[in-house]
């Protein structure tokens, strides 16, 4: 009743318009069917019977990586990849055929047949994509596959960029490597745009800057005929061209890096970090033993992987940022600074107990490294000669509270925030820490003695030590170490490192100068422990350290910066189980400084040719 009394009254008149719209929609469907089935029908019939359509991924080359002087340290070269399409009609008709194909391919590619069938079984979920059986296939195998195409249905040879590190194992830890993405990562929405078999950066810059370096893969649909010839499928989807990854320039100086790497004895374990104290740029970052990242680019066998990741010396482990060691005596300059800043001692203060080679605290006896004793020393000499007894007493006078409070101002227990993944934090324990771990009141005041000389529960990463050395050198600024130089997009160079990387710690300039001068004397003074880091032309300031190691021989440490007055480089060296810092670590630092201040001319340095790695 009420319907037609509507103000509009015309609600029925919409029927015609609606009918017309529906008719138009269906006309389009019928026209489209006519086009697909009648006009193009024969072609599609042919496609459905003989030829295969597949997606060809056009892998984008990763961005290149260069050192601060523009020398290439990672690039991409063309290579051949052998793929298989397990949904080729030969296999969907007769699944057993797949096994015989793989059995034939195994010897050609030089891999276990089981490795291949396991890979196919795991990756056959995405029916539209061929599976990459093997990367970087030798020319001979490529020729064989091409010749025996009729017996290897669905097998193709594709060209793909291969990640190459021209210097081999050099800088392996800071670079990282690339490897196939894992099942676990594929399930993570963060990696939604990766496909099975895609390469992804692992560790180092490759991992940390994956988003920039990776670029964007392209794709195209190709039609493969019975002879294996490919042609682009016209009139369907346009090919999407690959977008090359962003090129990166690092702060690394290959000369310094190389000197640091070569300074280690073969088979030695340890780490070197060299920083620019004026801005936190990383000049070299070494972890030993190292590995050749090229091994991973082509895909690595399980047994080789096990060997690298767990076997013996853990070569994949980045000791420069992932390992924290007791700082040993390299911490003494900072304990001294804590004493001065807190007013616990003056520069000339001496303690009641002179050093006799040992120090009695309660019922316990704490030894000095020098069994003959140093006698009664003030701060400067205590640092120069690294007297433990002086620092035991300074630690006691300061107490754990003041000592740990000062260390937390230096962010000793924090990560440096270096732009590499998986950095570990260090530790300088405070009262809460002991309460939590030992039980409230169940630890002795004597812990401060050990902490004052960098032993006990204190542990620091080599990169943190380098940051602290730079801190003394540059007059009180903690710079976040970083390796990425140009902030992309390309061309726009940041003239000044951003303030977010700078953390000024307010310390008295006079106190800092006292410590700095003492560190200079460590190297220059005949009684100093760091004489083996001395350079002819440039004044070096440093501090040795020997970290007690309950599991074996002591770790040797050395931190330094140079020139003393306005440092341009700060270095931390750690050598595992090598004994004294003065004899094992200081000489390595010297070679690093030498390479930095007196770089050999390029010709003689042998840093021009890539010939190292030619087969």
């Amino acid at each position, binding site marked *: *009743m009420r319907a037609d009394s509507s103000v*509009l009254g015309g609600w029925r008149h919409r029927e015609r318009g609606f009918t017309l719209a529906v008719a138009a929609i269906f006309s*389009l469907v019928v026209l489209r069917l006519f086009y697909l089935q009648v006009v193009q029908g024969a072609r*599609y019939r042919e496609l459905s019977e003989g030829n295969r359509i597949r997606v060809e991924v056009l892998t984008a080359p990763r961005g290149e990586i260069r050192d601060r002087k523009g020398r290439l340290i990672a690039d991409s070269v063309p290579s051949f990849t052998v793929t298989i399409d397990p949904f080729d009609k030969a296999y969907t008709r007769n699944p057993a055929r797949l096994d015989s194909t793989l059995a034939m391919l195994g010897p050609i590619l030089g891999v276990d047949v089981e490795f291949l069938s396991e890979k196919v079984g795991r990756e056959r979920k995405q029916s*539209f994509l061929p599976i990459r059986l093997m990367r970087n296939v030798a020319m001979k195998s490529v020729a064989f596959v091409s010749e025996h195409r009729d017996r290897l249905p669905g097998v193709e040879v594709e060209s793909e960029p291969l990640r190459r590190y021209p210097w081999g194992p050099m800088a392996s830890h800071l670079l990282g490597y690339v490897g196939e993405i894992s099942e676990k990562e594929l399930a993570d929405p963060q990696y939604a745009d990766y496909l099975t078999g895609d390469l992804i950066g692992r560790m180092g810059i490759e991992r940390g800057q994956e988003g920039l370096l990776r670029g964007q893969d392209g794709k195209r649909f190709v039609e493969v005929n019975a002879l294996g010839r490919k042609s682009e*499928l016209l009139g369907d989807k346009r090919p999407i061209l690959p977008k090359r990854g962003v090129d990166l320039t690092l702060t690394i100086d290959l000369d310094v890096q190389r000197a640091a790497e070569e300074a280690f004895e073969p088979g030695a374990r340890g780490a070197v970090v060299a920083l620019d104290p004026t801005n936190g740029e990383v000049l070299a970052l070494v972890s030993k033993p190292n590995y050749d990242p090229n091994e991973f680019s082509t895909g690595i066998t399980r047994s080789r992987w096990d060997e690298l990741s767990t076997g013996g010396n853990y070569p994949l482990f980045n000791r420069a940022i992932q390992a924290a060691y007791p700082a040993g005596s390299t911490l003494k300059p900072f304990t001294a600074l804590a004493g001065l800043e807190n007013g616990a001692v003056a520069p000339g203060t001496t303690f009641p107990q002179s050093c006799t080679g040992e120090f009695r605290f309660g019922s316990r006896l704490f030894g000095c490294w020098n069994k003959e004793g140093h006698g009664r020393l003030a701060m400067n000499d205590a640092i120069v000669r690294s007297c433990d007894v002086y620092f035991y007493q300074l630690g006691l006078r300061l107490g754990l509270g003041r000592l740990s409070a000062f260390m937390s101002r230096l962010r000793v227990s924090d990560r440096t925030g270096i732009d590499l993944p998986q950095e570990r934090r260090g530790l300088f324990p405070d009262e809460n820490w002991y309460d939590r771990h030992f039980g409230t009141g169940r630890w002795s005041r004597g812990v401060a003695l050990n902490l004052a000389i960098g032993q006990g529960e204190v542990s620091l990463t080599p990169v943190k030590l380098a940051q602290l050395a730079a801190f003394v050198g540059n007059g009180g600024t903690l710079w976040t170490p970083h390796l990425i130089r140009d902030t992309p997009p390309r061309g726009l160079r940041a003239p000044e490192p951003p303030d977010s990387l700078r953390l000024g710690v307010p310390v008295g300039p006079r106190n800092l100068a006292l410590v700095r001068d003492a560190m200079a004397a460590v190297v220059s003074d005949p009684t100093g422990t760091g004489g083996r880091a001395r350079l002819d032309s440039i004044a070096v300031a440093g501090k040795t350290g020997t970290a007690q190691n309950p599991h074996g021989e002591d770790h040797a440490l050395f931190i330094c910066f140079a020139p003393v007055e306005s440092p341009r480089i700060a270095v931390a060296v750690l050598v595992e189980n090598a004994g004294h810092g003065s004899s094992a670590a200081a000489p390595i630092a010297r070679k690093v400084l030498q390479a930095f201040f007196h770089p050999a001319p390029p010709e003689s340095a042998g840093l021009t040719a890539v010939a190292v790695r030619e087969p």
Partner: protein
Amino acid sequence: MIAPRFSSDIDRPLLAATLLLTLVGVAFVFSATAMSSSAAEHGLYLRQLAWLVVALSAGAVVAAVPYRVYEGKTAYLLYGIGLGLLVLTLFVGHVGLGAQRWLAWGPVRIQPSELAKVATVILLANQLSGRKQDLTEPKNLIRPILTAGIPFLLVLKQPDLGTSVAFIAVLLTMLYWSGLPLLTLFFLVTPLVNVALSFFLPAWLAFLGLLAVVLYRSRIRLLPLLLVVGVNLFVGIATPQIWNHLQPYQKQRIATFLDPGADAYGAGYQIIQSKIAIGSGQVVGKGFLHGTQKGLAFLPEQHTDFIYSVVGEETGFVGSGFVALLYLLLILRGIRVAHRARNRFGGLLAVGMTSIFLYHVLVNIWMTVGLAPVTGLPLPLLSYGGSSLVASFLQVGLIQNVAMRWREY
């Protein structure tokens, strides 16, 4: 139960088209799964037949009760149940194809969004036939927009873009049918167009120009004018801003969500394979059960979303054209029923149900023939799936209900 004077007015062509399409559906679910490598799929056509019994009974029941009982409070009750199920799905739903779309109850799994669509149409019909029906008054649009907007957002959250847009499509169709001025309809659609175009500056500017011209010539009142301009400017400027602040993987997700064919290798591949299947059917097809593109794992959803490509391959232009014509018949009869009904609620009910069919058929068939992106919507009556089948029969039952009682005011 149904008095003869009513049953004589059953729309026979509509009934015939429905039953024929259903039988075609069971046959091709059988064909699509018979050769499947997974044995679990072989019996699916039997399950589909079992669902058909449920669907037929449900359709008969909703056809028998005079449709006026769905008016008023019942409409709100049904709508409330529908929303409740949708909310429940968000919390305890089962994940299928990356979205939470299902509610499981023992062995039975239902997709509440299918039922929510029917309930939403009933409530919209109720609201648009009520007293506040003067749609030239913008504030009368608020309730219908909310009615469709809430389930739209709930389904979008699952996320199921294809199904959620159905609520908007149904709303617009029903507003159009109710006599909403075309100009107002245009203004309602503008923010959506805006979002889509805001990434492409020239197109966006051109669209804004067009909008300005229309606004200038429309002489609408100041407040609605400011509203239209404000909403459009906000949407157009905010969309790229929000986009730029998203994480790369979030962008990737949204891009795949909006247009899986654009970037996902799989979706583009599916479309090509679907086109090859349909095209290779040529004029008369390869014969029932003789399709070669099935079972090659080319189209994993062949018995559900891509069933029309099996029809096309095996029965050719003749068969797939015939199926398309059956859908055309079904929809045109639905419009006729709506037009003929004397009661405004009845007419709107019929047109709303018909528009659900239209939207699904349009999006699904256009997808399989490569005219629309992959969205994952089933083809009503043909695709395997109990909820979709039951919902389709509820829709047909309600249209028949109106057909039988067209004389009533």
